[in-house]
Each structure stands twice: as structure tokens, then as C-alpha cells.
């Protein structure tokens, strides 16, 4: 019961493949002039100062090492002028190292997320907002948080006092492009550990020459002698399609094509608990307090990111920490027993948490990933009281009763894949599609209802303020489900009503609805403005006094600046039309007033 027929999907794929094949030769310089969206970017790009391009991708790069006297310490921050508060530095220190004695020998990659210290504002802010406009909600810059992408190396080194070389190279960014930054680190970190600071300097210099992270463009990013090619998706892409297809023919030394900047391998991540994926989907959808206890930061962060992304294209709106330690500044806040557990998803590795978070309603325990045979046999959801502090069996511990009936087909399909040794990428694609269809089935009735809250076109009058959106009424919405509910697109039975009722109370609904509202209000403003442009202003001016005409000019000028600032979704040409209207109205006024009104309005 796919929303998009499979034929359509193939079509989507066939086309981009050609793009993937042909566009290898876009140079960064040309990239900038390739048009997507309204064309003001070209001006901004040429206005960029040194480090602006770098800042569009990364806040900074940190090196975290282990000092025998101090413990973990940030050894280097690059570029040197980057600002981090002491609190942020402390967070980075603890979050960049495994926090338990989990013999992570060799190289490990993982990611964490921490709160940004308040009060700092980037002068680049509005310039960066421009990229966010076209990005899907899940890929917008994280307001208020930073991501840390870690490449940790731990190897025996007898020449060192501690007997081990332990160091992390950490990329700090607001962009949630986990796959992209992991690939980037794979190129930079090993070189850095061998060749030290000049390598960082060169890498940062490379990054500062990159085109800005504009969704929808194919970006060619030279780094450390290789060229990475990526495309950041836009919110206009059809979900579940990829525009860049990995080409096996590529010479890895010369260029690397990343098929996705952010999508983790869901199948691999959920492998240890895949009997429960549907229940986990519900838990994430409803913003339930969830903790992942994993043997290593890599497994913990992968699983948390997979959880957060399984409800895509919905954005998970509560806090989530792919890797959380006892040193975290939110440790007390999140582990207190005096309140109900917060709506967050935490990934932890320290066994201490098994005790601290014992009271949490839903616990995913991941064992050693290597014991893969385990997943072939059926597993029950475990009772919470069976959770021992240490050495509990892997599995999902929860008293939760899912609203929807279990979909046996997907489990069977995946199981068959395991037996037939289907490539993990194919398994991942199946699972991703499954989640996408489930989420879309769930969200479409909401979309449909919310769209009906929009006032009718005929109620938009150019000479009155735009009409209000109608309020969201839960009862009315629930009524629509009888005829146009998820049963139209999903074969799954169960208590969908209960699921909606619960969802409407959770932060994910709130975040989703606010975003929708904002978009619709913009649309209303745009429709209103278009209606104004259709009017014959000359006739109106003749019927009104001079004072009123001046007032009209000022109001229209306001509208014009607002439309530009908020980038209203206008029909092309509307702004030019509006400007022409303003000019012609001004011309109908006496000369002295003309002089005053023609001056460019100060924003």
C-alpha cells in the first residue's frame, strides 16, 4: 500500500542516476552560479570573508587528548579564533572519549550533541538561514545545540607514559549531516594523527574554499587530495528518493560520492532489536523517554540517531543525546527521580546508568553487536523488573502496549533477507521505506485536516488584513479519521485513534504544528500580497485623500520589505509588480512628497 507506486520510485531513480553520472565536473566556482531558488545567493557568496565558508559548515575542529595530570583536555581548537565557553569545552572533553572501560582499541567513530551556551550569536546567522529555508525539517541547522562528530584513536604506544595513545579529533557543527561528517573525518583524522597541526591547517583551508552548504545543489568539496561529492536534500524532494546515486566506477582516490549526508544504516542499527522496530517507532513518535544502553559510544550514537530518524520526514522535536555521559551538564536534570522522566532519547555506555535510569519506562539494551545469530529467533519485550543493573540480556525493556497491531510482514521480509544474506544496504532500504510509509500514513490525515484550516481564497480581501487560520480542534480532526484515516494508506490495524490522541499531546505534534502554522501564515501573507497586486491602485488613490495615499505607500513598502525578509512563497514577478505599483502611486502625488517617498526605505 505504498504511497508512491514502485514505478514512480524507479523513475525517480533513473533520472538522478544520469545526473550522478554526468555532473562530476562541476567546479566549485561554477557551482555558485548554478541557480536554485531566488537568485540573491550569488551576491552573498561574493561578499564572504575568510572563514565564512568554513563557518557555514563547521563551528570548529577540536583535538581532545588525555593528560596524565588533567585528564581529558582540549589540546587544540582550530581555527584559533573560534569561541567555545568553558562549559562547552568541558562537555566536548567528556563526550569525545569513551566513558567506560570499553576496550575501544583502534579507531572508533561516534557522535554526540550538546547544548550551546546561551548568548552567543553568529554574525553569519541570517546568511545561514537562507540555506535552512530549502532544507527538510530534519536537516535544518540545530538551534541551541551543537553536534560533535568524533574520530577516536586508541592504540598501544610503549613510548607514552600511559602506555596508550588516546586522542580524538572532533568536528563541532550545527549541521546534522552525520554520514557526511563521518566520511570527512575518515579522510582528515588518520592524516592528522600522523602529521599533526599543518594537516588541520590545510584541511580547514580546504573547507574554507568549499561552496556553502546549499540544499539541492550538487556540491563538489575538495579535501585532503580527494573530492567529495554530495547533495544536501531539499524540502521539495520526494521523501525516500535519492538524487545522487553511488557509482561503483569511481576511483576512490580521486573522488568520493556520498549517496546521503545524513541517513544512518537503519537495518544495521536496529539489527539487535529488529523484532521491536514497530513498537520503537511508536515510542519515538510519541516522544517517550527512551534510553539506549550500548557497549560503546559508536553503537549508542548510531542507535539513537536511527531512532530519531525512523519517524522522518517528521522531525523529532525533543532533546536527544546520541552519547550521554555522567559528566554531562544535563545529567542531574535528566536523571532526577523527583519528576517523571523527560521526553528525551539518551544513548549511554556507562554501566552506572543502568542503576541511575532504572526507573525509566523504556530501555533498549544492546549487547555485543557481534552476536548476530541471536536476532534470528523471536524475542519478547522484557519486563522492566527483570532489568538487572549489570549484565542484563540485550533487548527492549518496557511495559508499553503498542497501539498498532504488529506487522509480521516486515519482520518476515527482513528475516528472509538475513537468511539469504541480502546486502545490508538493501535491508536498510526496505526498512527505511517501511518506516516512511508508516509515518506518512500517520501524518497524511493530519496534513489534510490542517490544510482545511486555511481560509478560503475568496475571504482574502486586499484592503483588509489577511484572515486568520481556523483553530485546530481535536474532536473535529478525530472525526475526519473515520472516512479519511490512515486505513486508506496502511494495511495495519489497531488503535490508530489512541495513537493520534497520544500524539496530539506530545512535543513532536507541537513542533510539527507550529511549523505548519508558520508556513500557512506565510502562504496567507503571500496570497494577500498577490491580491493587493491585482488591484487597480490608481482608482483607489483617486478615491482617497493625500494622507491616505501616503499611508498606502508606506504600508506597501512595509509589505515589500517583509516579503523579502521572510522570503514569502510568492508567484514569480509579484515583487516587481508591487514595486511598480508603489512607484506609480508615488508618481500621482505632488512633487515634494514624491521626493520624500522615493528615498529608499530604511529597513
Amino acid at each position: 500500500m505504498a504511497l508512491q507506486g514502485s514505478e514512480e520510485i524507479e523513475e525517480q531513480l533513473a533520472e538522478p542516476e544520469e545526473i550522478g553520472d554526468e555532473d562530476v565536473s562541476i567546479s566549485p566556482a561554477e557551482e555558485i552560479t548554478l541557480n536554485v531558488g531566488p537568485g540573491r545567493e550569488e551576491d552573498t557568496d561574493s561578499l564572504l570573508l575568510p572563514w565564512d565558508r568554513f563557518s557555514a559548515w563547521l563551528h570548529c575542529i577540536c583535538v581532545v587528548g588525555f593528560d596524565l595530570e588533567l585528564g581529558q583536555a582540549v589540546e587544540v581548537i582550530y581555527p584559533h579564533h573560534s569561541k567555545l565557553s568553558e562549559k562547552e569545552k568541558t562537555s566536548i572533553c567528556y563526550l569525545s572519549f569513551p566513558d567506560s572501560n570499553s576496550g575501544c582499541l583502534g579507531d572508533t567513530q561516534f557522535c554526540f550533541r550538546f547544548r550551546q551556551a546561551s548568548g552567543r550569536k553568529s554574525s553569519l546567522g541570517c546568511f545561514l538561514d537562507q540555506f535552512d529555508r530549502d532544507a527538510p525539517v530534519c536537516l535544518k541547522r540545530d538551534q541551541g545545540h551543537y553536534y560533535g562528530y568524533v574520530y577516536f584513536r586508541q592504540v598501544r604506544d610503549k613510548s607514552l607514559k600511559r602506555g596508550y595513545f588516546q586522542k580524538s579529533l572532533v568536528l563541532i557543527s550545527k549541521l546534522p549531516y552525520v554520514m557526511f561528517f563521518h566520511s570527512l573525518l575518515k579522510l582528515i583524522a588518520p592524516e592528522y594523527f600522523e602529521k599533526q597541526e599543518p594537516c588541520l591547517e590545510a584541511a580547514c583551508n580546504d573547507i574554507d574554499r568549499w561552496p556553502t552548504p546549499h540544499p539541492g545543489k550538487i556540491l563538489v568539496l575538495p579535501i585532503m587530495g580527494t573530492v567529495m561529492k554530495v547533495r544536501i536534500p531539499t524540502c521539495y524532494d520526494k521523501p525516500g528518493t535519492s538524487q545522487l546515486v553511488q557509482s561503483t566506477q569511481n576511483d576512490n582516490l580521486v573522488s568520493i560520492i556520498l549517496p546521503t549526508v545524513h541517513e544512518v544504516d537503519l537495518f544495521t542499527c536496529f539489527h539487535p532489536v529488529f523484532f521491536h522496530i514497530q513498537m520503537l517507532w511508536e515510542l519515538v513518535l510519541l516522544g517517550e523517554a527512551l534510553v539506549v544502553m550500548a557497549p560503546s559510544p559508536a553503537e549508542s550514537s548510531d542507535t539513537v540517531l536511527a531512532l530519531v530518524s525512523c519517524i522522518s520526514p517528521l522531525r523529532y522535536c525533543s532533546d536527544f543525546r546520541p552519547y550521554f555521559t555522567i559528566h554531562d551538564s544535563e545529567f542531574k536534570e535528566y536523571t532526577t527521580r523527583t519528576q517523571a522522566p523527560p521526553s528525551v532519547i539518551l544513548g549511554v555506555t556507562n554501566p552506572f546508568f543502568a542503576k541511575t535510569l532504572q526507573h525509566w519506562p523504556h530501555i533498549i539494551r544492546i549487547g555485543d553487536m557481534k552476536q548476530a545469530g541471536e536476532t534470528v529467533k523471536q524475542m519478547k519485550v522484557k519486563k522492566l523488573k527483570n532489568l538487572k543493573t549489570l549484565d542484563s540480556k540485550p533487548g527492549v525493556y518496557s511495559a508499553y502496549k503498542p497501539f498498532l497491531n504488529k506487522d509480521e510482514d516486515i519482520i518476515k521480509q527482513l528475516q528472509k533477507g538475513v537468511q539469504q544474506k541480502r546486502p545490508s544496504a538493501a535491508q536498510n532500504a526496505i526498512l527505511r521505506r517501511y518506516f516512511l510509509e508508516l509515518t506518512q500514513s500517520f501524518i497524511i490525515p493530519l496534513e489534510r485536516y490542517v490544510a482545511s484550516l486555511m481560509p478560503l481564497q475568496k475571504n482574502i480581501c486586499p484592503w483588509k488584513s489577511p484572515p486568520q487560520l481556523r483553530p485546530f480542534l481535536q474532536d473535529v480532526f478525530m472525526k475526519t479519521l473515520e472516512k479519511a484515516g490512515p486505513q486508506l494508506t496502511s494495511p495495519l490495524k489497531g488503535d490508530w485513534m489512541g495513537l493520534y490522541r497520544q500524539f496530539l499531546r506530545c512535543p513532536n505534534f507541537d513542533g510539527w504544528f507550529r511549523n505548519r502554522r508558520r508556513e500557512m501564515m506565510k502562504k496567507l501573507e503571500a496570497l494577500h500580497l498577490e491580491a493587493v497586486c491585482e488591484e487597480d491602485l490608481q482608482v483607489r488613490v483617486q478615491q482617497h485623500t493625500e494622507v491616505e495615499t501616503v499611508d498606502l505607500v508606506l504600508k506597501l513598502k512595509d509589505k515589500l520589505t517583509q516579503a523579502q525578509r521572510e522570503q514569502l512563497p510568492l508567484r514569480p514577478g509579484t515583487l516587481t509588480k508591487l514595486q511598480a505599483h508603489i512607484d506609480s502611486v508615488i508618481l500621482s502625488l505632488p512633487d515634494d512628497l514624491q521626493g520624500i517617498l522615493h528615498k529608499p526605505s530604511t529597513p
Partner: protein
Amino acid sequence: MSVRVPSMSVLPPVRKDRVIAQLPQCYSKKAAVQTKDEFNSKVKTACQEQRTGTVGRFKIAKVIVVGDLAVGKTCLINRFCKDAFDKNYKATIGVDFEMERFEVLGVPFSLQLWDTAGQERFKCIASTYYRGAQTIVIVFDVNDVASLRHARQWLEDALKENDPTNVQLFLVGTKKDLSSPAQYSQIEQDAIKLAEEIKAEYWALSSLTGENVREFFFRVASLAFEVNVLAELEKSGSRHIGDVIKINSNSNNLYATSKKKQSNCCQ
């Protein structure tokens, strides 16, 4: 005789002054990678028959530009890629990068130009950038004998990261406008001698006046292109190019087919 692939619509067409229809000639027959007048006939046929799929597989070549500090590596690239010359010296940090698109015998072909720093400080990281190079351009200043003397060392460093039998070498003297004919002919002798020894093709040019700059890069692009096409023709043998693409597109679809299709795809 330029042929454009329709699906390239996302890209602006290749600039008119980047179209190569004839094999550009070497600078000096005494030190050239090859001295033929025309492109290899197999290559020409392959391109004429529009078997661009073959060529398409390796349509990028990585070029690294190495040489002493301040011999004019960045200026050389800027003259060609941006048609600009900046008299002020600005040291390259780590590495600069440009991508230049050509159309050779009607087939799109790109050069990745990696402009490495000449400073000692960055020597340790240089090897990272050298990897996978198909063409090595060693630059020296025709007015600076020492910079020519160091060419051998630069070559040695660059070759450590690459298969010596699979790279094309160019030895390029810059700042020709600054030297008198007498001075120049002296250093040219040494340079050609060295070029012969290391099996490099010798060029002398001026980024300030632009003399020979375009000719040089056209030559680099053409020779790299020719080698790539020949290698690919040899590899693919009698196999049909269409098949290669087809197999590939099937395997791509496999990862995204929905439940319905899965059964026949994954047997």
C-alpha cells in the same frame, strides 16, 4: 564538432575555449611525452562512435602541481582557470584546488588541479594530496637555478604516493618574461636534459603574459584523456559499453525497490 549529452542539462555547457578537437603539440620535441601529430586512431574512433560510456568512466584526471616556494604554481593555475594574474604574492596554505572542464574530441573531460604549497612547513602533509595523481606537474622558475635543481626531489616525493609507470610528468619553467634570451637558453639546456632523464615533457611559459599557458594545459588535458581512453578500451575489450551501464542501473534499483518488487529482484 562538439556533441553534448542531453542529460547534462544541470551543467552549463563546456566553455567554447575549452574545446579540444586536435592533439595539441609538444613544446620541444627534445623532451616530450610523445611526438605524434594526432590523437591515437583507436581513441578517435571510440569518440566518434560515441562510445562515451567508455570514456565517461574515467573522465576526471587528477593533476598535482608541485615545486619550490614562489616559483609561480598558483599564478600558473590562476592564469589558465581565471585568466587573471595577481602580482602580489600570497603563499598557499596547504593546498588550493580548481576543477577545469574540457571537451576533448566531443567528450567531456575534467582536470582536478591540486595546487600544493611549496613551503617546507606543509611538506609533511603533501603526500596526502599527491595520492591518485595521474599527472604530475613540476614547476620551476627559469630565473632560479636552485628551483630547477630541486625538481628531482619534488618528483621523488610525489612519486612515493603514486605508481611511477602510470603517471605523466611535466617539467614547467615559469616567469619566462623575466629572463633574457641568453639566460633562458642556458637554463633551457639543463631543464631539457633533466626532463629527458626523468622522462618528463618540458614546457616554458609566462603566467604574466600568458605565453604558452593555454597550450600547456590543453596538452596536459589531451594526453591524460588519451591515456584514460586507451586504458579503458583495453580493459573493456570486446564487452559492450551499454551492458556495463545496464547492470549497474539494475543493481541501483535493487536497493530502492518496494516490497512488491523485492520478490523478483532479490529472487
